[in-house]
């Protein structure tokens, strides 16, 4: 079980989710998360600079193995039927999906928890780095402290 993909090509979140549902017809609950590339920096469109493009760098090999590790950890914590993680690398334009996480389980509580867990750990452990291009130049995105806090919540 579980599918991990790190890819340069854009993907279609809806088509991926439908495929995931079809592959798991006996799972009552499917929780998913889609991270989209926004066209501004910061908290809102009004106070942030316009972002025109993004480059996602990754650590080949470790990116895939870390994602597999996260899915394995999630599967140990909740009774899951299946999981899917797709992460883009390379050049992205605003509106494109950066990441998709999907979890199938009998009970929705498990699906939700595992999906949130996957994203929280992915954000702090999967070796990907975002560089945003704006009119004034390109800039590496800084890690958010809130992400560390959310990941720490799952420690045990």
């Amino acid at each position: 079980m579980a599918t991990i993909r790190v890819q340069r090509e854009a993907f279609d979140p809806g088509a991926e989710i439908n495929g995931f549902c079809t592959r798991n017809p006996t799972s009552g609950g499917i929780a998913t998360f889609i991270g989209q590339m926004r066209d501004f920096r910061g908290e809102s469109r009004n106070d942030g600079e316009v972002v025109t493009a993004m480059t996602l760098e990754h650590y080949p090999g470790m990116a895939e193995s870390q994602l597999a590790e996260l899915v394995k950890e999630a599967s140990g914590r909740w009774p899951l039927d299946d999981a899917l993680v797709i992460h883009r690398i390379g050049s992205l334009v605003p509106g494109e999906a950066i990441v998709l996480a999907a979890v199938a389980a009998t009970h929705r509580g498990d699906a939700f928890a595992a999906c949130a867990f996957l994203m929280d750990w992915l954000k702090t452990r999967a070796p990907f780095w975002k560089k945003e291009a704006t009119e004034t130049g390109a800039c590496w995105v800084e890690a958010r402290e809130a992400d560390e806090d959310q990941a720490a919540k799952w420690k045990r």
Partner: protein
Amino acid sequence: MPAASLTVLYFAWVKEKVGLGAEAVSPPASVATVSDLIDWLAGRSPGHAAAFADRKLIKAAVDQVHAPLSSKLGDAREVAFFPPVTGG
């Protein structure tokens, strides 16, 4: 005994500051931890020095597993340095 060869990888702005993405190095036997390796690498060029100037900003992985800077290198074959991850 010749020093073992170690692959060192750099990512994101660490790579940009060092000026290269990977290099094979042979640190002396006194380099026992990731932190020792940083000290030693920092002396290789002004770019290395700049990249490692504030090591609070540096994360490391030893053989593709996250490792604190205090980790022993042991018989590691690949050490990577990078800023905190920002994927997802």
